[in-house]
């Protein structure tokens, strides 16, 4: 399945939910996710299915002014 993650074209295999995706990308620590401009609440990571062409943003907090 083709999606865009943080601006990068990516081919996903074996990831249907956001949870799968996070596990697949081996992302640690606190994050937030937006898909196609809409926030995906952490509570719905398990049930929110990914679809062909999704534009996915995965962000975290870092030092900033």
């Amino acid at each position: 399945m083709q999606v865009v993650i943080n601006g990068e074209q990516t081919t996903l295999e074996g990831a249907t939910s956001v949870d799968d995706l996070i596990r697949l990308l081996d992302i640690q620590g606190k994050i937030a996710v937006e898909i196609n401009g809409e926030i995906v609440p952490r509570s719905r990571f398990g049930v929110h299915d990914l679809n062909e062409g999704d534009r996915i943003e995965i962000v975290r907090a870092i030092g900033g002014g």
Partner: protein
Amino acid sequence: MTETSPKDFLIIDGRPYTSRLLIGTGKYRDLEETRRAVEASGAQIVTVAIRRTNIGQSRDEPNLLDYLPPDKYTLLPNTAGCYDVDTAVRTCRLARELLDGHNLIKLEVLGDEKTLYPDIPQTLRAARTLIEDGFRVMVYTNDDPIMARRFEELGCVAVMPLAAPIGSGLGIRNPYNIRTIVENAKVPILVDAGVGTASDAAIAMELGCDGVLMNTAIAKAKKPVLMASAMKKAIEAGREAYLAGRMPRRAYASASSPLDGTFFS
């Protein structure tokens, strides 16, 4: 300062803070230096940036939130780096989700990279949208007193005029404007950006500001932790001087010792 500390709180969005120094967490050597500087500064509100995770390499990345636990500090997500309304608004929504519904944010929508001055019309639109969406907005603006009042009327919980360009360290370029903003305001006025050294921070407080937000002045000092301590004291010194009521300026001299009974007079 026993006379005032009991009642002299900075109140933002209904929550009282004893420290009037807010600091940014960018530009430090590492997160350990960040932590030590924040501690030395006594800051209770620290700004953080929201950025994309580095896919595939974030594994053992140290995590800011481990160094600045949200239960100990009020984390203030800011939209630094946003040049349009949509980006700023989406950044705030992600920040809220990231911080479990925390809705106090610092809004900046920038005009260009040379000055990093705010784009006022876009900042107005973004502020309106965010406030409708339930955010508590602390807004970065220029030092125009009319705009400051406009943001207050809009419902921003704090107005944060710049003293000088972000990262310039030029100090309060136009004290006249800052003082006018303070005189008109009913919400906290925090000087944001431009402070370069301790006296700049003291001057901002002496003008009647409720607090100061800074980052580069501490992070880019030769000794950041020591400068953080200097800033803590400068903010308190300026606040106390403001509350104490400075002596009047005089064009000419006035003896400190009594003339009466002068020796051999």
